[in-house]
């Protein structure tokens, strides 16, 4: 870990003030800015120890919990403060009842200790688990060292992405909660030196393309203050299915966040997001379109799954992933349709 200055921000204004010096690094990616916000620290401190992230200033934003630490549920939808802890959101009665896909995406993630620490804002900004990225002794990693190449292509790639990848980076976006937010069409509340803005969650993360080091559309110094999830007839019939080798405490190899509005078995609206093999949180509009207006059956679920993975790109060991992804989605859709609500 490189030396840094530790600052504690009592409130949002103080945090933004401290973040302003990062804004000077305009053009740099948010995650590479010299000032980093510290929420739970479960991504940031980990990557600083590994020498992957080297901020000069670490601004502790846990004091913002008073302003941005609440969960509000109402007729319009759900508001989640950025400083809400994963564990608290996962256990919130309204979230569990009305947005089960969110509760499940959180409670199936990490461990209870980590969920007690980690914030929702930090969670969506967690970084890839690509081991070539996390180990700085690999020289080639376009995400960590722009322009250096990609050591992962051609290596053991079981944990890599097959959707949205480029020839510059095949890293998987590992988070679970982001899938739920993407599926439900959430928006992100952002405050920055330039003021407030709200963007669709789907636009928060970027595809790697030829700039995998720029992971989000946040500008340096910008602060996520919360998420809004619109209400909809599909949110109660929703679930998160996570497939992994062990039963718990592991990132997904495949996942599906699905929500359905059914009318006598016919899909009025479907929401689908995929994980475990995606370059960024991945809403599958293709799968949704394939389902809309059709009875939800094994056959229509298969067709949706085929559409979702039509563009998958495989490299080596990861050849099985599109098939696993399809099966995961089919299973999730059928399970979701069978939910008693």
């Amino acid at each position, binding site marked *: 870990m490189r030396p840094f200055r530790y600052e504690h921000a009592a409130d949002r204004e103080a945090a933004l003030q401290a973040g302003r010096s990062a804004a000077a690094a305009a053009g740099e990616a948010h995650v590479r800015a010299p000032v980093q916000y510290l929420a739970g620290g479960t991504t940031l401190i980990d990557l600083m120890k590994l020498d992957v992230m080297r901020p000069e200033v670490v601004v502790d934003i846990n004091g913002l919990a008073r302003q941005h630490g609440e969960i509000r549920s109402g007729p319009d939808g759900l508001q989640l403060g950025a400083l809400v802890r994963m564990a608290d959101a996962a256990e919130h009665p309204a979230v569990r009842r009305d947005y089960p896909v969110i509760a499940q995406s959180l409670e199936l993630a990490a461990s209870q*200790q*980590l969920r007690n620490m980690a914030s929702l804002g930090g969670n969506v900004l967690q970084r890839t688990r690509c081991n070539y990225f996390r180990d700085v002794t690999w020289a080639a990693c376009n995400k960590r060292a722009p322009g250096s190449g990609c050591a992962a292509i051609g290596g053991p790639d079981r944990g890599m992405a097959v959707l949205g990848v480029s020839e510059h980076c095949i890293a998987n976006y590992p988070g679970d909660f982001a899938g739920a937010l993407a599926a439900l069409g959430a928006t992100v509340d952002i405050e920055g030196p330039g003021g407030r803005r709200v963007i669709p969650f789907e636009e928060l993360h970027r595809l790697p393309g030829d700039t995998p080091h720029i992971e989000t559309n946040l500008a340096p110094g910008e602060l996520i203050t919360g998420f809004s999830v619109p209400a909809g007839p599909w949110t109660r019939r929703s679930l998160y299915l996570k497939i992994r080798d062990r039963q718990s405490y592991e990132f997904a190899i495949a996942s599906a966040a699905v929500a359905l509005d059914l009318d006598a078995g016919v899909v009025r609206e479907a929401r689908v997001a995929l994980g475990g093999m995606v370059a960024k949180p991945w809403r599958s509009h293709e799968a949704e379109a394939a389902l809309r207006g059709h009875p939800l059956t094994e056959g229509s679920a298969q067709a949706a799954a085929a559409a979702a993975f039509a563009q998958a790109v495989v490299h080596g060991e990861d050849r099985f992933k599109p098939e696993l992804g399809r099966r995961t989605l089919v299973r999730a859709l059928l399970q979701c349709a069978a939910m008693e609500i």
Partner: protein
Amino acid sequence: MEMTLNVNGRDHRLSLDSRTTLLDALREHIGLTGSKKGCDQGQCGACTVHLAGRRVLSCLTLAAAVQGRAVTTVEGLAQGENLHPMQAAFIAHDAFQCGYCTPGQLMSAVACVREGHAASDEAIREYMSGNLCRCGAYPKIVAAIREAAPQMAPKMERA
């Protein structure tokens, strides 16, 4: 950085690097070596402590960030000579072998019960999955928690 850490009810004034984690502060600077380092990356749970009553990983927590909040470690679990019911149950059920994961398991187990996540064996298994035990004491850890949970009278509990 000058800082004051409150651990097991006692204040410790320390001068530490801003990079020092809570785990290293406990082990290397305060002399409380009960909390263990099994990975230093949030992957094993051996460093689990309670921060303001909630279980967290001390290896991913900066010491500087916990000033003013109560830290409880395994050394703070027993009251004098009286073991916490969870400690006694771990001994009775042989819920450890090498004992290296045990401090973290105990801190997690006590929190698991307090959180209300010990209602069934299945819940215990899931909510104890953030604590690896390479010796494979899992079935006995579950048995110990099952037994200790009803004995954890509220009066035993610190706020």
